[in-house]
């Protein structure tokens, strides 16, 4: 079974090459080819999943790729365990749904071949990432994923915002990736291996202790925070919404941004070794969750609301991992992948119908877009944590995990965030689908069936996935590196509180945006300062720009001064000295032939005399050879 696992990432890669090789000619077939490839990958992934359910275990295939002088070698290999298989299935499934959807959404776009080959390439990279059995392969695919994300955000590269957003995403995640790389190298330095299993064993065996383990864990977490858009590296994700909506659904909601959470889970033994690192992860996750949720409450761009929601939910998952509740984090990752992909695809369907991203220009779309509205409602209920939708179960699992870890402050943050989440998602849904249509006249029409079908499938899963909680827990606990788990922590009041918060959020959204008993504009005016702060996303982008301008540019100016006057000055002085020396000495070259001859002759005489003075025996030799008379003549000289 495991021998064929390599085919799962290989098929999308093959499809990507095939489609791009076909060029313009494959425009009609591109989507079908790549979707077909990922369909077969999904079948195989499900096959591996069922195999692993019947016989749980951790399997690894690996070959040595580069052997270095020491005993450190780089491998290419795959690690198949419940964690990676779950990720395989999620990635293949969401990718398939999104690609089918894209057949409708992207139809008629000029760059459709490029689009599908990038999508397929992304799928390949992501599958390679989740299968990696060693840190070097993992890092390679990690960067490939970042590259495909860059390419797809900047898919409409003629739009300056899209090109800028692509660059921003690449550069911001680069900060984190640098940390990841250093972390990997430090790990390899101490433990002498790149293999994830061996790293885990070594760390468990106590080969990495004290401050080093905290430092390594935090460096690796920097990579995870970059990809998973955790504060303070979250700024790229909302801008990444400039890409096509299906791209946002696949990469920036369901899979790639979850890679950071996956990374923490994959290397959990490394994190588990440091209580400090886990604490920082938990609090940073909680902070991000709350921060992003508050921003999402006042945004008006439909995709940006969802983007901040993604940031917030990823913070939730990090919070769970930081509290050692590995399984709850992964469970939320799974359910979130489904309902957030659904939210994005439904949003794409709305955008497809009305050609705008601004929710203020929508309104009353419910009757025109019945299926979109219904599926999006399912996703919103799931995100909002309303039972019996999937989000309720995974969110409760996280809250329970936090409670079990004894972090009451984070529990409060989680519950408040749950309320805010319900508020902003129903604000979105109510504004878009209910009420009176906006003044702008549009002919909203339901999307074609290729777009509707994925919505329905995803909605079904968003509804039902939560019931698998116990099975999920049981299955995942067999995966490598999972902390030993006993009974799921249980607390009767926490789900109540969370549900209460969610209902409060829903009620508030209902009053403000449906009943309009409370005027949103009035609220904005009354809390003008807060509103402005949230509207500008806490001015984080502005702070970064300020820091770059003031900090980096100042530093650059100083360095430029140093370069101009010290480095260049030294070079100039040397040049000047040479020029002056030449100017002085060229006077010696008088240009008269006889002057040179004279100098030459005098020089010869000087050499001869000095040789004779220092070696008087030469005179003796000459005297002995020639007659005494000659000897006397020479001696006179």
């Amino acid at each position, binding site marked *: 079974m495991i021998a064929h696992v390599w085919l799962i990432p290989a098929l999308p890669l093959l499809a990507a090459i095939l489609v791009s090789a076909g060029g313009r000619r494959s425009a009609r077939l591109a989507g079908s080819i790549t979707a077909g490839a990922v369909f077969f990958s999904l079948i195989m992934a499900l096959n591996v999943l069922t195999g692993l359910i019947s016989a749980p275990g951790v399997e690894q295939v690996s070959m040595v790729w580069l052997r270095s002088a020491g005993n450190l070698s780089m491998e290419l290999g795959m690690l198949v365990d419940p964690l990676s298989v779950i990720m395989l299935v999620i990635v293949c499934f969401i990718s398939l749904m999104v690609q089918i959807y894209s057949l409708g959404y992207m139809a008629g776009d000029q760059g459709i071949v490029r689009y599908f080959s990038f999508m397929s390439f992304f799928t390949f990279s992501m599958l390679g990432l989740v299968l990696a059995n060693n840190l070097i392969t993992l890092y390679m695919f990690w960067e490939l994923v970042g590259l495909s994300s860059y390419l797809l955000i900047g898919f409409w590269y003629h739009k300056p915002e899209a090109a800028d957003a692509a660059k921003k995403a690449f550069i911001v995640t680069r900060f984190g990736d640098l940390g990841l790389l250093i972390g990997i190298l430090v790990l390899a330095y101490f433990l002498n291996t790149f293999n994830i299993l061996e790293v885990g064993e070594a760390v468990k065996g106590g080969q990495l202790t004290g401050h080093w383990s905290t430092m390594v864990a935090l460096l690796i977490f920097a990579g995870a925070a970059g990809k998973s858009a955790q504060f303070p590296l979250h700024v790229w994700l909302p801008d990444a919404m400039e890409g096509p909506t299906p791209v946002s659904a696949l990469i920036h909601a369901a899979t790639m941004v979850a890679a950071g959470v996956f990374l923490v889970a994959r290397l959990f033994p490394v994190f588990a070794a440091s209580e400090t690192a886990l604490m920082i992860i938990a609090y940073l996750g909680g902070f991000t969750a709350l921060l992003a949720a508050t921003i999402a409450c006042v945004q008006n761009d439909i995709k940006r609301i969802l983007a901040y929601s993604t940031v917030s939910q990823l913070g939730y998952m990090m919070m769970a991992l930081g509290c050692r509740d590995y399984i709850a984090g992964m469970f939320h990752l799974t359910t979130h992948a489904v309902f957030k992909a659904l939210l994005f695809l439904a949003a794409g369907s709305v955008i497809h119908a009305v050609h705008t991203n601004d929710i203020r220009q929508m309104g009353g779309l419910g009757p025109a877009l019945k299926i979109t509205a219904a599926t999006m409602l399912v996703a919103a209920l799931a995100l909002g944590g309303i039972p019996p939708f999937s989000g309720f179960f995974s969110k409760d699992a996280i809250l329970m995990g936090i409670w079990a870890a004894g972090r009451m402050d984070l529990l409060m943050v989680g519950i408040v965030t749950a309320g805010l989440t319900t508020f902003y998602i129903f604000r979105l849904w109510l504004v878009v689908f209910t009420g009176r249509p906006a003044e702008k006249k549009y002919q909203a029409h339901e999307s074609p069936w290729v777009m509707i079908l994925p919505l329905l499938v995803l909605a079904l899963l968003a509804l039902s996935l939560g019931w698998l909680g116990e099975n999920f827990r049981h299955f995942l606990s067999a995966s490598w590196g999972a902390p030993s788990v006993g009974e799921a922590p249980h607390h009767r009041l926490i789900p109540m509180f969370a549900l209460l918060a969610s209902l409060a959020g829903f009620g508030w959204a209902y009053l403000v945006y449906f009943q309009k008993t409370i005027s949103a504009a009035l609220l904005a005016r009354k809390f003008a300062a807060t509103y402005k702060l949230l509207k500008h996303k806490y001015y984080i982008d502005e702070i970064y720009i300020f820091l770059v301008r003031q900090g980096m540019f100042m530093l650059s100016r100083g360095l430029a001064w140093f370069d101009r006057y010290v480095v260049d000055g030294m070079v100039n002085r040397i040049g000047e000295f040479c020029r002056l020396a030449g100017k002085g000495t*060229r*006077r010696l*070259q*008088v*240009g*008269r*032939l*006889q002057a040179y*001859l*004279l100098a030459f*002759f005098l020089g010869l005489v000087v050499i001869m005399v000095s040789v004779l003075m220092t070696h008087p025996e030469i005179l003796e030799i000459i005297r002995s050879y*020639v*007659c005494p*008379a*000659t000897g006397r*003549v020479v001696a006179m000289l």
Partner: protein
Amino acid sequence: MTIGLVHYLVLSTILFTLGLYGVFTRRNAVALLLAVELIMLAVALNFTAGAQFWGKPGGLIFAIFIIAVAAAEAAVGLALVIAIYRNQKDVDLDRLTMLRW
């Protein structure tokens, strides 16, 4: 009084000195070349005298070499002088300073 090695050497020294004087004083390039010939002949004479005195042929071989080199040098030197003359209408060494700084 027989003519011995010393006489040859003295003659050679006189020729060499004359050549040196010519090299340093002549302003005409052709005259300078002639003076150089004189120096070389002085050396050649020296070598021949030595060969005669020690009864070894090495000096004679050197003399032949020197004559050959002198011929070649004269040919190249005169060719250069003619080329310079065609170019500058002048072979006065004091005035040939166009390559100076």
